[in-house]
């Protein structure tokens, strides 16, 4: 990979566009967590005395921060990146300037992480405001937000670079991200519902690891399994990005 400072030019281009639309974009970010917390945390939570030793709404909060980070990154590297690549010819225009394919990829990933931080950050602020983010421990969750963004940016761009049609993103969202959302420790602790063998298989799920990191951060607890979680997030991101760099070069420089 030959990432250069020109990656920041790509990032800046997205920021320039976002500055025009941020007011419209940011507002839903504050409402989405509230809706979840009220509906599921308080509504469903009324029937649940406690989960994993805490109120249900408190159990839910850290997982939803990870989900927000996942969503924030995913939209950027799927629909938005696909449109920039195939319809708006944004990348073709960048490649008439000193920007190289590796810079395009790095800039887009960096931007997806930025979006995930904005998204997840809003979520965190709402949760903190209603007293569900114990301070100062849950401050540790903040750097985990862009890290989650990195993982889902890498996953999303890998998919975007391989598909021929924009319609296929419904598969990515409905058959990949939605199941992750439902089965990654966000709504219930997996280890209490799955037997040993299945528990190991669940470790494959990408969202499980950010959720576990997030939840430990909120509690201010350390556990050896977090080493595995961090290694998974960083390792899989790195692997996917190396493959994505190759695919980007092939796709843009064909």
């Amino acid at each position: 990979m030959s990432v250069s400072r020109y990656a920041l030019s790509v990032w800046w281009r997205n920021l320039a566009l976002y500055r025009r639309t941020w007011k419209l974009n940011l507002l839903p970010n504050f409402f989405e967590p509230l809706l979840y917390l009220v509906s599921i945390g308080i509504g469903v939570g009324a029937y649940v005395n406690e989960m994993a030793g805490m109120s249900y709404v408190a159990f839910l909060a850290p997982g939803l921060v990870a989900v927000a980070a996942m969503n924030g990154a995913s939209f950027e590297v799927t629909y938005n990146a696909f449109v920039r690549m195939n319809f708006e010819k944004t990348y073709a225009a960048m490649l008439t300037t000193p920007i190289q394919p590796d810079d395009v990829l790095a800039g887009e990933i960096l931007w997806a992480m930025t979006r995930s931080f904005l998204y997840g950050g809003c979520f965190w602020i709402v949760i903190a405001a209603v007293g569900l983010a114990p301070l100062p421990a849950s401050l540790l969750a903040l750097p985990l937000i862009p890290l989650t963004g990195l993982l889902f940016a890498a996953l999303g761009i890998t998919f975007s670079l391989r598909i021929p049609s924009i319609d296929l993103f419904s598969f990515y969202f409905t058959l990949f991200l939605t199941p992750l959302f439902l089965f990654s420790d966000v709504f219930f602790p997996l280890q209490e519902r799955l037997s040993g063998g299945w528990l190991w298989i669940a470790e494959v799920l990408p969202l499980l690891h950010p959720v576990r990191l997030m939840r430990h951060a909120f509690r201010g607890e350390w556990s050896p399994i977090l080493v595995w979680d961090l290694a998974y997030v960083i390792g899989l991101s790195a692997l996917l990005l190396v493959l994505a760099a190759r695919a980007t070069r092939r796709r843009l420089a064909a």
Partner: protein
Amino acid sequence: MLRRPMPSLVPDRLAEHDSDPIVACEGVAKRYGDRLAVDHIDLAVPAGLCFGLLGPNGAGKTTMLRMIYGATPPSAGIVRVFGLDVTQHTRRVRMRLGVTLQENALVEVLSAVENLRIFARYHRLPRVTSERRIEELLDFLELRSHATLPVRALSGGFQRRVAIAVSLIHRPELLILDEPTTGLDPAVRLALWERIRELRSAGTTVLLTTHYMDEAQRLCDRLAILSAGRVVADGSPAALIRQHLAAQALELTLPAGEDARVLAEIRDVRTLRMGRRLVLFADDATALLETLRERGRTGDPSAVVVRPANLEDVFLALTGTALEGDA
């Protein structure tokens, strides 16, 4: 209206040796699967000229340009721009050239000024420099009245001007234009040609593709005609006409079967069939017309036209309609 070339449009660095070509392609080929899009082309674009690549759709013009600015590597051969191998020095080459793509790749919700700033960032220009150049370009392309409107609210002609402006933000020594005036109305085309001429007189080398023959004839100092990935002819527009046809054209309206009868006993005339019209090329078309009149072979007399031969004739002769007569 701005009428004189602005000194500030002079590229920062002119080619060290004017005799060295700005672009030099040697045996350049590009293969996509089984298809050879560019078939071993040799091409030299001299400094300071406006050079046109002509060809029908699919002739390989855009692929050729993409190899020249290093967006895609050639499958064979070598492309040198400013004397540098583009594949090895892509970034250095692209710092010194500007490209306007066939489609305006602009951020449509942003204004001309904001789009110019984005391209200034792509080139990592210092803020002070980029703001100064944005001011210059707003004047040069007469964009000031529309500078802060979203690009998508602008007419096609204005959008095209913005697209050309962004490719000039870093004062390139070489400007590459892929079909710069396709889809624009005649007035806008004339205005753009004038701007391109000004850039050239200020020292910028211009390389463009077009399939408008009048554009090529009036704008380009030199041309290369591409067909099926090969250069089938090159030279100045006048030389191409002289070399491949003749100075004048005589157009007759005749049914297709009568060519042989009309042309009987007529020598050294090249002909071109365009539907119902038969075009004959001769250095003295009036004399040829007299000869044919005497023999009563002019077809519909009210549809006879004598005119100078043009590039369109050359193009059709070389790429499309079969050229007949003595080769």
